[in-house]
């Protein structure tokens, strides 16, 4: 997996490169907008990480031009601004996700993984499965080991998101944004409560738990080894 990081803060970029390499990515760096656009257009990258504010060509224009030229590589915007309309502007310019600085590295990693995955050809799925946990999206039925589980609508959406990202870490913020469509941080970890309720329904009474808490990062739904 190849990631292009377009970021003018050299220390931040190198730190990001190191972290992503530790996680198994091949990382290239560009330090300004013009260089970044040229690399993004010529190279074959799986994800672009683009800072909003760049010398010579700002991030928004860079992505607009990339998209105008037919480039479809998923883009994660980074921004020190983080204001309400920045997210909207970023997504309108052709970004796929948006992360405000300062961010936790685990958050960045989780979002890059989600973007890489999104790039895989998406067929219309009617059925999700993780180990013996199954979800029928048409009939909105969930079962584990053929035992029907009754979920609230929000629990269903939460589980659906976890199952679509099975095997990957999803952060609390990602859940808030994608399941609740909220763009703010609750002070206490309300998400933990929702997760533990869901866990009570899908894992309770089963020998092998599927829903795991990843300390300092978020949660992961995965099949037992």
């Amino acid at each position: 997996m190849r990631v292009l990081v377009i970021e003018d803060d050299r220390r931040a970029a190198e730190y990001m490169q190191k972290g992503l390499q530790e996680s198994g990515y091949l990382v290239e760096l560009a330090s300004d907008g013009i260089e970044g656009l040229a690399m993004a257009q010529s190279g074959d990258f799986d994800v672009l990480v683009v800072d909003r504010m760049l010398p010579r060509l700002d991030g928004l224009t860079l992505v607009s031009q990339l998209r105008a030229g037919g480039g479809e590589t998923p883009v994660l915007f980074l921004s020190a601004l983080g204001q309400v309309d920045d997210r909207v502007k970023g997504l309108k310019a052709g970004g796929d996700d948006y992360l405000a600085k300062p961010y936790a590295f685990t958050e960045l990693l989780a979002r890059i993984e989600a973007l890489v995955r999104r790039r895989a050809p998406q067929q219309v799925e009617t059925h999700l499965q993780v180990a013996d946990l199954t979800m029928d999206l048409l009939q909105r039925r969930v079962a584990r080991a053929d035992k029907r589980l009754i979920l609230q609508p929000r629990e269903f959406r939460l589980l659906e998101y976890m199952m679509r990202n099975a095997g990957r870490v999803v952060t609390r913020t990602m859940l808030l944004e994608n399941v609740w469509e909220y763009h703010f941080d609750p002070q206490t970890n309300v998400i933990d409560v929702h997760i533990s309720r869901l866990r009570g329904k899908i894992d309770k009474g089963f020998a092998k738990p599927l829903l795991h808490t990843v300390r300092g990062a978020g949660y992961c739904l995965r099949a037992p080894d």
Partner: protein
Amino acid sequence: MALGYLVLFGLSSLALMAFLFWTTNGLIARQTDDTIRAEITGLAEQYRRSGTTGLRNIVAERSRNQRSSVYLLTTPTGRILAGNLDGWPPVPTQADGWMDFTFERPVGQSTETHQARARHFRLAGDFQLLVGRDVQERIDIGSRVRQSLIWALALTVVLGLIGGVVMSRNMLGRIDAINKTSQDIMAGDLSRRVPVTGSGDEMDRLASQLNDMLAQIERLMTAMRQVTDNVAHDLRGPLSRMRSRMEVALMKKPEAGGYRDILEASIEDSERLLNTFNELLKIARAESGSEASDMKDLDLGTVARGAAELYEPVAEDKGLTLHVDIEAGVAGRGIEPLLSQAVANLLDNAIKYTEPGGHVTVRLAQGETGPVFMVADSGPGIPADQRDRVLERFVRLDASRSKAGSGLGLSLVNAVAQLHGAQLVLEDNSPGLRVTIRFPST
């Protein structure tokens, strides 16, 4: 500058008085000329009708009766036929027939020299007629008027000078006071204020405006200082904790292990620090009003219900009853993420501070003046004298700080309410706290 004003003032006074003099004097002179002209016309008519004899009789009669007039009728040879002048005045007739001369007027036993203005008229047969008026009185009045005007001018200039000096001294004194105050303030004494005399004049109004501005600046400065102090105080704790934890970790032998726990704990601490900074930035942004342009029409019920649904399991887990009472179709205008955050903060607080078995109510209704949103709990509440204070950044009432939290939640709610032009009210819910946000009607 002051001298320039004085000269200008003197000149304009002079011009005003000269104008007054010229118009009144000129008016009287013109009236005299008109009556003389009319009289001559009358006499010429008389001459045509009744000849020299008739004219002589009339002139003689008028000379006797009309003391303020002068008459003289002479033959072509210069012999006096009638009149009250001793002879033809020794001045040449002006081209327009007018003459100004002096004559001796008998007053009692003696005579007085009087000024006269007359018109010289040649009758048919070369008889000469002179009709005039004694203008001495007019000239006397004129000179008296002129004199008094000069006095008035002198007085005006002197008074203006004195008044100007007094006023500018007074003004300069007050401006000096303002300068002095500004210098003191620049030197660091923010409590200084410009003196107000109480006269209510323009300078006073300026002074009170300046004072209001200074008071506002002082308030902001104090608030800022407080925030800085609080930031320093609240961030020092986790930072020094992190530092000592890492120092202790370094003392251990590398093979002893346990690094992972230390790093994870440090990450948690740094995350808390970053969150605090983010909250501060969010509050500052909301307070600056720079996001006001992002306002959109929205359904406040959706916002309230969403947050209530998010927190419902949290309340239930803690053994609280959550009442949700949301009127349908309450529309508002605002920034959705900020409103959601504000509602979430209020719910967060309510649930955090209410003991198990208590209840929390979320209510949204269309009030008379606009949408009214309310979160009430049955917790310990906030004493009346502390309700303003808890809106400040980092203020937490539980001295033990046993409950997790940054002390920024209500500050953000307050900033968000202000950004939306809404009114935030903290009240006693006896028992508990009731927080109401009254939105303006859209």
